[in-house]
């Protein structure tokens, strides 16, 4: 698609307090979504799976990254590998399962082309009669992989951008120092609960929602009770390095403000009793509180559909000890449900003629304008 066919920007003149959003078509147009798949999700580092979900060699997960299906697995040397989930022979999906475990090879169910856990073509009917078929050149196509904070990030770009700048940089921009996240030992924590939300909304609505807190007092009564400053509408993400302070009566980050779980011992005094939120573009949201970390991965599947996989991470002894994490999980599960309901409420209106030029951002939301500029920039040229 040529960039000239992108929906135009808002032309209306606005009062100084307001700033325009993206035009409605950015949230509905399949061509815009296809361009986002290529220029954003298939070009940037994409947080694909929790490394602990691949506990041993041969364990695998398939994830959609942009328009591609990617097979993520653990090789015999315990390193994590990722491949396009496409047989090099005639293009059949190697695996149609979301997860599973193979003993020592991936075999295409169509003609039995067989690849080892490093992706090398190791066997195929009559392969010995084709000595000119190089087993690496005709192996599964590799995707760049990084492991950080216990998650596996993949990048489909031929020349991946700097992980340090793009991913770690996003954390530094938000927290002030990338080392601040180390105090939460995210890689050492364990998934206590995972909830998968199938949201009928464009991924950008979800990002925008996560970035602002103008809606907090209206749709998040429980969260605003725990974090009273959210009532003024300024999100934790508005100021660099700022974490929202728990209310005075609040004992922990739980649905009723009761005590949470064992505190992560390396969390600093400054970080105690505070909530930090980070957006790692394009598809990760992280919340840090003293006793757990909430980690969202978005999987945009269509212009109007996004799957969000959310992990609640606790100290391993909390999870293994069978502690009751229900009230802890319930707080942000409610927040998620409230947020995603709001996003689904907006999605149908994105194609309304009254929203063709988009909506407006109030001052406490105007950092979302930077996100819009960023999206436009990625889609341009």
């Amino acid at each position, binding site marked *: 698609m040529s960039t000239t066919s992108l929906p135009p920007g808002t032309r209306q003149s606005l009062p100084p307090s307001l700033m325009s959003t993206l035009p409605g078509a950015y949230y509905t147009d399949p061509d815009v979504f296809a361009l986002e798949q290529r220029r954003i999700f298939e070009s940037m580092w994409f947080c694909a799976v929790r490394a602990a979900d691949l506990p041993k060699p041969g364990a695998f997960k398939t994830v959609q990254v942009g328009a591609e299906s990617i097979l993520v697995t653990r090789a015999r040397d315990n390193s994590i590998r990722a491949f396009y989930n496409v047989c090099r022979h005639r293009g059949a999906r190697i695996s149609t399962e979301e997860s599973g475990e193979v003993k020592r090879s991936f075999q295409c169910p169509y003609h*039995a082309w*067989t690849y080892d856990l490093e992706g090398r073509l190791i*066997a195929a009917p009559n*392969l*010995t009669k084709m000595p000119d078929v190089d087993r690496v050149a005709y192996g599964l196509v590799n995707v760049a992989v990084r492991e950080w904070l216990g998650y596996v990030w993949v990048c489909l770009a031929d020349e991946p951008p700097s992980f340090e700048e793009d991913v770690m940089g996003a954390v530094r921009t938000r927290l002030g120092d990338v080392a601040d996240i180390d105090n939460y030992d995210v890689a050492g924590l364990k998934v206590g609960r995972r909830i998968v939300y199938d949201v009928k909304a464009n991924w950008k609505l979800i990002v925008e929602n996560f970035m602002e807190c103008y809606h907090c007092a209206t749709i998040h009564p429980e969260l605003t009770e725990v974090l009273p400053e959210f009532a003024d509408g300024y999100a934790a993400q508005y100021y660099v390095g700022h974490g929202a302070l728990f209310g005075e009566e609040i004992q922990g980050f739980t649905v009723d403000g009761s005590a949470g779980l064992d505190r992560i011992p390396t969390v600093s005094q400054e970080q105690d009793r505070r909530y930090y939120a980070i957006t790692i573009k394009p598809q990760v949201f992280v919340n840090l509180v003293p006793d757990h970390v909430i980690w969202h991965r978005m999987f945009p599947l269509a212009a109007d559909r996004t799957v969000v996989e959310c992990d609640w991470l606790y100290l391993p002894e909390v999870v293994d000890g069978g502690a009751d994490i229900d009230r802890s999980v319930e707080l942000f599960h409610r927040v998620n449900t409230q947020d995603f309901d709001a996003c689904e409420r907006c999605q149908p209106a994105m194609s309304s003629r009254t929203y063709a030029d988009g909506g407006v951002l109030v001052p406490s939301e105007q950092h979302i304008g930077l996100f819009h500029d960023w999206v436009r920039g990625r889609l341009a040229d």
Partner: protein
Amino acid sequence: MIPACPLRSLPRGEAFRLDVEPPIAVFHTEDGEIYAIDDTCTHQDASLADGWLEGCEVECPLHASKFDLRTGQVDAPPAKLPVRTHRVVVEDDTIFVVPSDAPANLPPGVAVRCQGAA
């Protein structure tokens, strides 16, 4: 007696495909034994030297039938016929194979080609 490869070039757990007609696979087991069998699975043209060696058995990489390196017997379908076994001689650090005189149980397409070549 055909020279296959130097003993030191075939570590334990590895296999060597001897490019004769029909090809022969030589295996060095983890226990240090050396065995030779026909390289081609009796079900479909696949190289058993590319398969997985476990103890005294090799599993075909395509459809997982397992062949006993000592007897050539197959454990389970889709392969039904055994592979031939060949005598192995190690002399002066070289592995030699003495090909069997028995008729080979080659899969359909391969059998035709071998007859044509003969």
